[in-house]
């Protein structure tokens, strides 16, 4: 089941712009390795789930996977062959707004080699360029 908020203030949101780099959520906090976004974009809830499954299948019971993003933006769309006007479309899917530098996923309890393979599988699912980062000592 794809992720989405339990309660929202408004059903629909404006599109917005992704400006600047991530100043929060840009370090590895829970695990030992992280998958960091190199560019910004929207990541669909279904894509997040696809990445989770791809990583979980590789990790099995050995390591622990953490998802560091949440799809809290509703994206609307108008049906095909609709005439202009008649207002904003209905919510189509939920997406996470990702700035460059955001850590998307984290892995703990695995070796670096395992993390590399796991994140390589996961990176194929992502619509943006990503890279592997390690926990910082200082």
């Amino acid at each position, binding site marked *: *089941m*794809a992720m*989405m*908020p*339990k*309660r*929202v*203030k*408004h*059903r629909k949101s404006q599109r917005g712009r992704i400006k600047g*780099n*991530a*100043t929060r959520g*840009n*370090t590895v906090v829970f695990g*030992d390795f992280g998958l*960091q976004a*190199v560019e910004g974009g929207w990541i669909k809830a*279904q894509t997040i*789930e696809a990445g989770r*499954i791809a990583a*979980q299948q590789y990790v099995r*019971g*050995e390591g*622990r996977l953490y998802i560091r993003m949440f799809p809290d933006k509703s994206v609307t769309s108008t049906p095909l062959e609709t005439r202009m006007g008649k207002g904003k479309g209905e*919510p*189509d*899917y939920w997406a996470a707004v990702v700035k*460059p*530098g955001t850590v998307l996923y984290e892995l*703990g*309890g695995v070796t670096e080699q395992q993390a590399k393979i796991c994140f390589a599988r996961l990176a194929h699912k992502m619509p943006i360029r990503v890279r592997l*980062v390690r*926990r*910082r*000592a*200082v």
Partner: protein
Amino acid sequence: MSNKESFHVQLRDVKGTRKSRALRASGLVPAVLYGHGQECVNLTVPVKEVDAMIRHGSRVVELSGGITETAFVKEVQWNAFGTDVLHLDLTRVNAKELVDVTVRVELRGDAPGTHQGGMVNHVLHELEMMCPASDIPEKIDLDINHLELDQSITAGEIDLPKGATLVTDKSAVIVQCSEVHAQPEETGVVDTSAEPEVIGRKESAEEEGSE
């Protein structure tokens, strides 16, 4: 114990974003030195020496060149990607002075609990402690060779270096071995029609109805 690095610093009289960026482009990292009731001094440190300090895990540095002092690296500012150091905060320090420092905890060994269907969960990766500036450990090795299933090791059980006192809560769990929970199976069907509850919507609808 972590090695003491040396920084060949220069006094810095330029301030501000643009000039700091120009310094970084020329291979220098802006830094500031303060503490012990003395005046604040602006410095530059070669980026190669900063990288070496981070690579070796040193926290106490010997300053030479523009100023001669022993300093403790209080804070390191990184860019958004964690690739480049933007700024250093250095405080004057004596060898015997107690400093508040965070030290990373590394797990060593193989927990027997993992062979009983458990998984090692490293909860707390860093410990905060007060220790003499001359004896700051680079890391703390935690032996988990006796960690059975459903057992945990708390911060209070860790052997600290001589002269160090723990600041982190003693009951804080560092590592635990717990049973692996089965992951929810993927049904392949995604319910896209479900929508979250809209806050305040029901109340306003009732009000309209009553009027």
